[in-house]
Every structure is written in structure tokens, then in C-alpha cells.
């Protein structure tokens, strides 16, 4: 992961919100599924060319009483996991 990387949803992936529990991400090309909880679904919806610090910053405004460091760790882990599984695309900013 590059510190400057920005992230997008893989355009092939569909997201089926199953609120309030979370959602189902489906990659039809790989025929793989990821079940995400509510926090994961929130991160997924923010993936439109943002960097991890930008996503963390937006989420801090949504959730009360959460430490920035812990959130950053969770967001990074979630994103890298889904990049690895080709649900999220990583790129350098233009």
C-alpha cells in the first residue's frame, strides 16, 4: 500500500445492502462473496477515489466516541483485505 493510494469500488462488484446488519458484496467475475457488517458497508459506500485518511476523516464525522487510530487501523485492514480479494481497486492519484 502506498500512503498516497486512493481506492474505488471494483465496478463489476454488486452490493446488496441487508440493513441494518450490513451487506453482501458479490464479484461476479470471480464468483466470490464478502459479507460486510454495517461499518464495512459504510466504508464501501465511501470508496469513490478517496484515500484512507479521507475515508477515516469522513467516518469520524459519522460515528461518535471512536478513536481515530483504531478507526484508521480497521479501515486499512478492511480495504487491504478487499483489495487483495479484488473487490476494491487501488490506484495512484492523477
Amino acid at each position, binding site marked *: 500500500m502506498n500512503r498516497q493510494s486512493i481506492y474505488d469500488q471494483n465496478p463489476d462488484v*454488486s452490493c446488496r445492502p441487508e440493513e441494518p*446488519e450490513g451487506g453482501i458484496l458479490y464479484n*461476479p467475475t470471480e464468483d466470490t462473496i464478502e*459479507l460486510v457488517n454495517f461499518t464495512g458497508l459504510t466504508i464501501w459506500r465511501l470508496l469513490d477515489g478517496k484515500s484512507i485518511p479521507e475515508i477515516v476523516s469522513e467516518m469520524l464525522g459519522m460515528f461518535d466516541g471512536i478513536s481515530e487510530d483504531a478507526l484508521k487501523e480497521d479501515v486499512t485492514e478492511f480495504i487491504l483485505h478487499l483489495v487483495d480479494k479484488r473487490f476494491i481497486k487501488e490506484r495512484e492519484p492523477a
Partner: protein
Amino acid sequence: MKGGDILTDNSFYWTRNADISSSRQGEYFRLYNPDTGREKAINESGYAVWNAMNGQTRLEDIVAVLAGIYETDVSRDQLMADINEFSEELLAEGFICRDLFPSSMPLVPEISPWNHESPMMFDLSLTGRCNLKCAYCFYADEMVGRTDLPLESWLQFFRELKALAVRHVTLSGGEVFIRSDLWQLIDAIIEARMRYSILSNGTLITEKTLEQVVSGKRPYRMDSIQISIDGSCSEIHDKSRGRGSFSKALRSLKMLKEAGLPVVVRVTVNRHNVDDLENTARLLIEEIGLSGFGTNDAMPMGAGCAHQGSITLTPDQRIKAMRTLVMLEKRYPGGISALAGSLAEWHMFRDMEKAKASGHKSERWRMGTLSSCGCMFQKLAVHHDGMIAPCNMLADASLGYINETLIKDVWQNHPLLKEMRNRATIPMSDVSGCRDCEWIPYCNGGCPGVEYTRTGQMNRANPDSCYRMFIEQTGGLPDISGEE
């Protein structure tokens, strides 16, 4: 879960086997292990226990989760013992694993399968037109008379499916390859983030078709392409499917297989091929090199109603089909499959016999209430004129029309779907014609569609799945467990 005086072991961290899929079937939940083919039906609290096993939970954590969901008078120690016993059972059957150390990342909870707001899958009949006129096609004349939807209507519908994140569509007809715009439809399905399967009679597939199939993302999004083969030679296959159809279907089958596409075969067992099943298996598995094939029986639906006296199996032929297919199951382990028809019935009737003799009901399927058919919880069908139906075999069970009715609304609110899903709450003892039957504790009434087609009523048992009737007609289930 049952109670018991078992010492609990709280040292382990428990994890759901990540390969297991779960689905709701009536009041029960079905766990399925694709590695072993093993299934297990569990109740709601069992599902909650299984779902709580995220790699970072010990038994005491699971007890706490359960106590948070259910009000219970059961003591904590008893609950712990119950969960321990249940966990050992799941562990022995490969549905979960355990470790002395917690996993670094917890598994996210399974999304409750009964809460899906829209279907996961669709069966789409893209056309009512067909170049063949098979004697048992469930698309009978009254279906063929309806008009095919134009391309634009399907494209509009696929946009709705994309918004609903539908995962899979199965394309059939009629004969799908009769549509000249099939590739535009498939590309729109791909664009809508779905995978697809094709059901075909195989007679219209040419080298040109193959070039189209392997183009772009089409082969990567294809789950399977099914060709119908109903015999080992043209003399038998063509009797039910029409002259010249065997050689064309076989050629297509070989061509698709050589191209490395996920080709599968369905054999519809009927009066013409029941004595030829062994030869058909040899052709498909030994000569062509398929790993196996699926079977079904010709059913009294659609054209099958009109040809019932000449195409559907007689009682003696059902026994013959069972004997042969069970023998082939042993000869080709894992190679012969059936969701309906003689082979499926043999397994179902044998489960019923075993359950009655032992007093223990099968864990593979629900006994004692009507079956709601798993489809009702996962998918819908659309006929070629745009009519939405619970199943592609139901010609007249209209739930509305695509692009006029919102799928989400149909899925969540249509009374017929609700009625079908609720079948699982109806005890067999309340089903008309079944009250005095000795088999009702072990029966589920079979496919709702067949009897709905016949009578227009949903909450009845399918006579083709009736074991009492089967015994009356045939003398009982043949003892074929020791053959070959």
C-alpha cells in the same frame, strides 16, 4: 439442541467453516458443505450458535450471545452443556472448526438468509419459440402462443436486477439460441454484474456460436451451459425430441467440452429411454468424458400432460429407473445427480423408510410438514412475455409483469409467494387426502408446482411424490442397496 450432562470445554475458540453456505428452508436452516456434499438442518437457535462462531468466540461467549437473543428459563450451565453438545456435533460433521488460539480477524456475521429483500437469482425464459417439439416440454402450446419480449424490455429489466444486486440468471426458453439478439442480452447481464447459465437443446450451436460464447467476459461469467441428451443414440433420443436432434446435440456437447466451457447434461427419464440409461451414462461419462450428468423424469406438466399416457414412466418403469440410476450412482461415484425424478424419489422414500424404522427424522430435509420449496426463498422466474412467476414451470401463476411491477414489491408482498413460503408451517396431517396416511410424519408433500398446475391449489401434496401411492402401485421401494 438437546440437554445432557456433558462436561463443557471452554478452552477452544470456535469458527464457522468458511466454505459452508446457509439458507433458510421454512422454519429451519440448511447448512451445506460443498467439500463433502453434507447438509444439516438446524433450528433458529442452532443457527444463532453457528453464526456466533467467528473465530474469537469461546463457548461462554456464545452462551452470552444466545442469552441476549432469547429469554430462557434454562440455567447457564445447562445452556453451556447444550451448546457444547451441539458444537461437538457440528465439529464432527465438518461445519465448524476450533483452535486453542483466537483468529486474528473475526468472521463477519452471516447475513440472515431470511431477510433478503429481493431474490438472489432468476430463471428467465427468453423466448417461447423452439425448433423442437419435445413430448414432455413444460412450455406447452399455451406458453408458446405468448409473445416474446423485445430486447429493450429485457435491457430495462436487467437494469432493475442490477440495482437489486441479483447475482445469477438462468436463461432458457423455448430454445435460447433461437434469439438473434442473445449476445446483446448476455452482455447486458454481464454489465448488470451478474453471472449466467444457459439451458439448451443443443441443436442450434455452431462454430459461429462458439466464437460468440468465448468472446469477452462471456466465458468467465458463465456458470454452466446445459445440453439435453435423452439417450445413447438417435433412435432413442429422437423419439421424444424429434428427428435429427441427437446428432446435433451430441456435436454441440463435444464442441463445448473441447472449448473448455462448463458444459453439463440433463437426461430426462421417460418411457423411451428408461431401458437405455446405462448406455447413456457410458456415452456421457466414459466416451465423452463428462464428470457426470443430472437426471429428472418427464413430468405431467405442459406438453407432458397431453402425452402423459405415452411419455411419463409407468410404475414398473419407475422401479426400473430407480434400480438403474442407483446402480449408476455406485458405478460413477458423485457422477449422477437428481433434484427430482426417480433417483431423487428413491433417496427420499428410503429416508422415509429409515426414519419410520428408527424413529429419527432425516436431517437432510424437513419431514412432517408441506415442503415450501427452497426456490421461494431465493429466486423468481420470468416467462418470455414478461410474466413474473414463482417458478418457470408454472405457466399461469402470475405475480405481475416485469417493468410494470417492482420486483422488490412482488418478492416481499405478493400473497401467492407468501402462501408458498408458508407451506412449511402446514402439518401433513392437515393436508387434504393425507390425514389418515401412516407416512405423514415423514413426508413433505413434494413439489408444490405439480399439484398447483393440476388443481390450481397450493397446499396439496403432489401424488407423484406420494410414498403411499407408490407402495400401492409398485409394492414398495425395491431393495437395491446391495446391487452392483
